């Protein structure tokens, strides 16, 4: 079976800084894959590279198709859809219109007809469903700026879903959410993936990522330092060292022995 996303040897440099150094990452069909790593490890840069917003070397295949040379909007047409850490809603459009922009690709004829006859573009069915999924129906006519941070995050994800993704890239969807919202979001994501939408989830909420992902990649200083199931990653001393500080690495075994036990109880 073709992988939903296959990124090979992705490297990105900003001037002298090598932000990503040959990252290989695969999201299998129907899988929820986590990407974690300390602040500044290059996670967002990876998403930018995959979606075509920064120049990178290496290859990106979406459902087996090489998309490495395509501009971002073409990648989106093919179903590679992302959210943003900073949400990036269209603040001048209502929630509904935000979803409509993502959902519709108007033909020339229909555009001319809309403008000449003053037709209202009909709400796409997917947009309606997505709003329902996140309980956003009642805020559909609102401007995004009137919503809470948590709601805005959800609108960002809803907009991505309205674009009809074949692979969803979520960049820190839980940052800024409270504990309950974050747990809610996790359950919804899991359900989406179980219904067949492969997803790459980046987040700092370790509980969320370890709790719901099928496999996890760990990035540090632009390189993949670990890859495996949540249990494997959890018990990997390198990961803990990367997360809690490199200086702990030498004594990782000694200083943080309790980790494995601490998590085992769950």
């Amino acid at each position, binding site marked *: 079976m073709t992988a939903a996303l296959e990124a090979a040897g992705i490297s990105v440099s900003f001037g002298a*800084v090598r932000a990503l150094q040959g990252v290989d990452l695969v999201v299998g069909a129907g899988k929820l894959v986590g990407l974690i790593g*300390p*602040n*500044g490890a290059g996670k967002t840069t990876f998403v930018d590279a995959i979606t075509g917003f920064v120049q990178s070397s290496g290859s990106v295949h979406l459902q087996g198709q090489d998309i490495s040379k395509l501009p971002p909007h073409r990648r989106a047409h093919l179903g590679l859809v992302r959210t943003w850490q900073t949400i990036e809603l269209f603040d001048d459009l209502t929630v509904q219109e935000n979803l409509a922009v993502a959902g519709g690709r108007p033909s020339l004829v229909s555009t001319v007809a809309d403008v000449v006859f003053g037709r209202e573009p009909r709400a796409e069915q997917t947009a309606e469903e997505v709003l329902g999924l996140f309980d956003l129906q009642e805020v559909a006519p609102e401007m995004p*700026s*009137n*919503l*809470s*941070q*948590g709601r*805005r995050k959800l609108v960002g994800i809803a907009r991505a879903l309205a674009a009809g993704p074949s692979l969803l890239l979520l960049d*820190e969807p*839980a*940052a*800024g*959410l*409270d*504990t*309950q919202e*974050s*747990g809610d979001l*996790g*359950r919804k994501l899991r359900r989406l993936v179980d219904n067949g939408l492969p997803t790459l989830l980046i987040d*700092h*909420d*370790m*509980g*969320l990522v*370890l*709790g*719901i992902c099928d496999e996890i990649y760990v990035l540090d200083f632009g390189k993949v330092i670990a890859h495996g199931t949540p249990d494997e990653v959890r018990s990997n001393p390198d990961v803990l060292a990367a*997360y*809690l*500080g*490199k*200086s*702990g690495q030498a004594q990782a075994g000694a*200083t*943080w022995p*309790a*980790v494995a*036990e*601490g*998590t085992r109880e*769950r």
Partner: protein
Amino acid sequence: MLSLEKVSAGYGQSDVIRDIDLEVRPGEIVTLLGPNGAGKTTTLRVISGHVKQSRGTVRLKGHDLAHLSPTQRARAGIAHVPEGRGIFFGLTVAEHLRLGYRGETIDPKVVYTYFPALRELRDRPAGLLSGGEQQMLAVARNLARSPELLLLDELSLGLAPLLVEGLLPVVRDYSRERNCGVLLVEQHVPLALEVADHCYVLSHGDVVLHEPAERLRDDPELLVESYLGGSAAKETLAT
């Protein structure tokens, strides 16, 4: 010296931090830990006045800071090294040490005593310094202001931890010698715990742990529990 009482703040309508109580005493290093998005940076911004709190009080030496602008707070003795360093790439090292508001005296000697390496780089624009040197300059420039309170945000961001390992003991010495309070946000936990006196852990905007740093050094399990596995994890797994 610095005290936060039941401070909530955020962007737009929702709060990123909720009912935070926190205290920093003179000559003491307090570290603020927690995963990304927990509200650490927001807390620092509230203190330096770049984010307004929606509730609660921030006091410096007993004075309520509510009506002071960021500029006024800086002049009242709060030095804030933000994420991204807060220095000016177009200015040389020496020019950073001349930079100051009217009437402010900056002592370049402080800088060169604590960070002798900067003396040789004095005529180099900050944009051409290495990341570690930039961070050194950022800290040095703020020490030169003789602050009452120093806020440090993720010094190690994008740097090799080794570099920060060199920086923090200098901050430690300065803080003790000059009786300056330090609030340190840091993702390299052992590094932070090594120099800190007290430790707060934030998770999803709440203080979930407040202990003397010594205790956490001795018993890391306490920290790992609140840091790595949140209640969110349990909840998610439970359902």
